């Protein structure tokens, strides 16, 4: 999952991956492995090495409020690219979640695919991302070839739901 946080006119690009109670967060070329749980709604207890962070997060109309160690930050989740896209699609859709390089195209036009099949592999920030079919369907267009540069939000392939 790729997220951009805006805070006081700065944007922070973060990737986070979850495996049960473990989270792998990459920011500014550093990976943080933390153990975390939501102990009650909005209350997080995060174990980062030997430290225990406690944080409370609530969502306002436009912003998130983050309480951490006595400080409060107002942060917005933002999209970085100018590409218009339906926000509802979100990650896991056919749009690239990150700006990077296409390292593999697993399908061709006309292929029938099943939900969950890998369609394209994108590499960015030393990590690789899988674009999967959100539904069963048929590939109608492929917008990028291997080694192409792709920007966040651009559509990787197009498909028709069956």
């Amino acid at each position: 999952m790729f997220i951009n946080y805006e805070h006081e006119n700065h944007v922070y690009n973060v990737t986070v991956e979850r495996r049960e109670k473990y989270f792998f967060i990459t920011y500014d070329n550093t990976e943080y492995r933390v153990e975390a749980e939501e102990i009650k709604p909005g209350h997080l207890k995060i174990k980062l090495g030997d430290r225990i962070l406690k944080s409370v997060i609530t969502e306002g109309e436009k912003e998130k409020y983050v309480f951490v160690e006595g400080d409060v930050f107002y942060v917005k989740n933002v999209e970085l690219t100018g590409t218009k896209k339906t926000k509802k699609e979100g990650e896991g859709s056919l749009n690239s979640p990150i700006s990077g390089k296409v390292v593999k195209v697993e399908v061709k036009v006309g292929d029938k695919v099943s939900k969950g099949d890998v369609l394209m592999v994108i590499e960015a920030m030393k990590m690789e991302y899988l674009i999967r079919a959100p539904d069963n369907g048929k590939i109608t267009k492929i917008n990028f070839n291997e080694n192409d540069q792709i920007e966040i939000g651009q559509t990787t392939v197009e498909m028709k739901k069956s």
Partner: protein
Amino acid sequence: MMLTKVLVANRGEIAVRIIRACQEMGINTVAVYSEVDKEAPHVQIADETINLGDPTPIASYLNIPKIIESAQKIGADAIHPGYGFLAENPDFAQSCEDVGIKFIGPNPKVISLMGDKIAAKKTMKNAGVPVIPGYSGEKQDISSLVKEGKKIGFPLLVKAAAGGGGKGMRIAHSEDILEESIESAKRESKSAFGNDTVFLEKYLEKPRHIEFQILGDEYGNVIHLFERECSIQRRHQKIIEESPSPVMDVKLRKKMGEAAIKAAEAVGYTNAGTVEFMVDGDLNFYFMEMNTRLQVEHPVTELTTGIDLAKWQLKIADGKELSIKQNQIMQRGHAIECRIYAEDPANGFLPSVGTLQKVEPPRGPNIRDDSGIYTGMKITPYYDPMLSKLIVNAENRDECINKIIWALSRYVILGVKTNISFLIKVLDHMEFRKGNITTHFIDNYFKDWISSKKGLPIEAIIALSVYDSIHSRTEEVVRYKESDPHSPWKHVGRWRMGVEI
């Protein structure tokens, strides 16, 4: 109890505090509120409520005829004014008296006299209470002024009678430069204000604001409940108060306490009041003014003396005699209060309005939260932006500072900006911890303080990422790992390895 129903002519935490004190004593309570406060905590807990309408203070909480009329209509036999609003308005106290409603505070004449700062000082000087030495007479020739100046002593403040903004103001540290200072102040004053009259006043170095709590009953008994140190002020607004004062010793406390009682007795003071003093670096003290009401910072006195001031206000108004004698009052441990404001330290401490998305005060032994807020409450720009007072007590000052920092760090208020992180920084300042505080403290150490411009700390980024990850409804983009037969990801559910593709 003769009092059976008290109307509380206030809002916020102090209204809550007073209503609870009444209820504990079996007195019925009436809350008044303006339109925007109709769901405020004081309205929720009161027994009866009266809508004063328009939220502008002048139309509601400052509306004397409306409040008096409401009190009569609902059958209240007393009115507690809290602090602020009408608390020190002699006309209001008089209006209550006129219709036979007990005003919970001193009588209107005392309020009026203490409201006139010059008359108050004169009264105190005549009663033998020290006031800041000065000369504000008519003789304005240099030699007379030099003579008067020498009488007052050094350092000496020379200030333009018409002055303001530091213009026409000089500090003469010794006799050598007195004449020169007076002449230059006069010149500057003349050119700035067209008037060269100057006043002389002893200049206080390292000034502290230290006040004494007073209780007086209606039979002439007056006691003091020791001091509060209130030097930590931002733009003349107290933000951190404590008791005892770190500068106080047994001798000074005794002298100042006696002066405070003398001040109260000089005006026949009744009910709760506060005598404010300035204390200089040499521990000379001077009467500044008397506040004829319960103070915002009264809890630090309650916690160090064990005496419930709000209840005593009610008892005294009810005609009870002060059953506590001066020598029975024990000052014990240390208490600190922090005022939590809805204001944005990153933006010139401007008031911050909005909806409180989450309010979770810290809880635990010796932690007191006098607050008038709750999750979901709207903070409007109509009133004082104080959200809450956090007060803790501990065995000594060091532990008390650590404890209140700990508690502040756990006070969750989301939705409006607050001064909590600023308060923590002040409390944690080395000079504060040493007790080296003056009324210039914030100016000296935090003049240009701006809340972290260092941006989002990694802790916040991690917390946000975890939160978004947990709450994401979309499928996760899974990580594509290099082929490693020993990878722990191999057999883990959604996680897939490159080789599988």
